[in-house]
């Protein structure tokens, strides 16, 4: 009976697109969140989620991302669905309540604009972001993430992210090293992208406010 239950659960989850959209609790404890940020998160993400000083673009900016998205990532790090040598150890020490608080805290911060490093990639990056690749069957990123990359609860905010980080994530979706995307959509489309396309679209995203 145990296996049946497991099978039924997994199928249920797959049928739901693997998206257990956990909403963060509304009654946020900002003070508690700030305390954890100042002890743990700030070292890589900065107090306001815009990166530490000096910035390390391998660690994502998380300011102004959807709380639902941030909480899903924290939960996925905890369950092992998203793998990270660094984050796995960190979230193991954080309670479910505090993860909710943290998600709401960082969602409430304002994302700061970045300086573009490779402006020559922007024109193609913008075209790719808005049109995708009909030849290769890559949908336009803007279709889900919005033309200004502001995202929705289902598709995260991407504007102003470090190009290094976005590129890394696209690469790891393409190799299925990262596999916590809803319905395998990011993995499927990243596999159809060239490295140059990934770089250009990442640079373009960094240029968005």
């Amino acid at each position, binding site marked *: *009976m*145990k*296996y*049946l239950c*497991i*099978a*039924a659960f*997994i*199928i249920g989850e*797959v*049928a*739901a*697109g693997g998206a257990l959209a956990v909403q963060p609790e509304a009654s946020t404890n900002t003070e508690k969140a700030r305390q954890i940020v100042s002890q743990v998160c700030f070292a890589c993400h900065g107090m306001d989620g815009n990166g530490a000083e000096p910035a390390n673009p391998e660690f994502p900016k998380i300011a102004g991302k959807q709380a639902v998205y941030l909480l899903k990532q924290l939960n996925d790090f905890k369950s092992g669905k998203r793998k990270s040598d660094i984050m796995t150890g960190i979230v193991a020490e954080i309670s479910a309540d505090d993860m909710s608080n943290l998600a709401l805290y960082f969602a409430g911060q304002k994302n700061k604009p970045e300086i573009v490093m490779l402006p020559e990639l922007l024109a193609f990056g913008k075209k790719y972001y808005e049109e*995708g690749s*009909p*030849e290769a*069957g890559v*949908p*336009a*990123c*803007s*279709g*889900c993430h919005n033309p200004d990359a502001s995202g*929705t609860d*289902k*598709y995260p905010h991407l504007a102003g992210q470090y190009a290094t980080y976005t590129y890394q994530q696209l690469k790891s979706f393409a190799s*299925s090293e990262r*596999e916590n995307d*809803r*319905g*395998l*959509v990011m*993995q*499927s*489309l990243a*596999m159809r992208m060239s490295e140059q396309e990934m770089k250009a679209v990442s640079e373009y995203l960094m240029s968005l406010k």
Partner: protein
Amino acid sequence: MNKYAITLALTLMPLTALSVPPQQPKAEGIESPNYVWNADSGEKKEILNLKGDAMLGKEAYRGCQGCHKANGAGIPDGTYPQLAGQHASVLIKQMADIREGQRENPKMFPFAGKHVVTSQEVADIAAYLQNMKIPRDNGKGPGTRLDRGKELYLKDCQTCHGDNGEGSANKFYPVLAGQHYQYMLREIRDIRKGKRRNANPKMVKVVRDYTDADAEAVSDYMSRLMMPERAAEK
């Protein structure tokens, strides 16, 4: 441990081992002697019994508009078809056929299969698209043999697809008005050679003996059809 439970679990388990990218299943199509066009079965039947909610469909359509565009217009070069104002029944049938593998579409499948879009979402998306106005700037043909195109359309197509390319929601015949020339030409060719495996045998019979020039002429004529009540403002 219950024997049946184990059997059931083993039967269901492979569903969970999704490969990346997800592979489209293959269902019997027109190549099979048992083929019944538009059989009253499968997911299509299930979705047709659901009530589509156009408001929810707008949000679910996000996963489609990266290719088919926010206004449903697809791309005028025909890579992606125009969907706005299409009959919900037709959209549901085609989606179900792709999801169950009767119509091949490896490009679209990873973003439209059951692993990522629910049956209810298909119903919602169809309701949303059906209400949308048909853009007027679809891809048109070269306009060189429209007389021949009209002749063929009136002889072979009009009975089912209507004077203005309005199709039939009840009969699952698609709206042709506003569709891209290149897309219709591609589908006619695919139907002709049996590549479109969910084709209506009546359609195969119609286009079987078309020359390329005739397929082009009739597609060109059809690309200029317009349904006044569903067309977008100028």
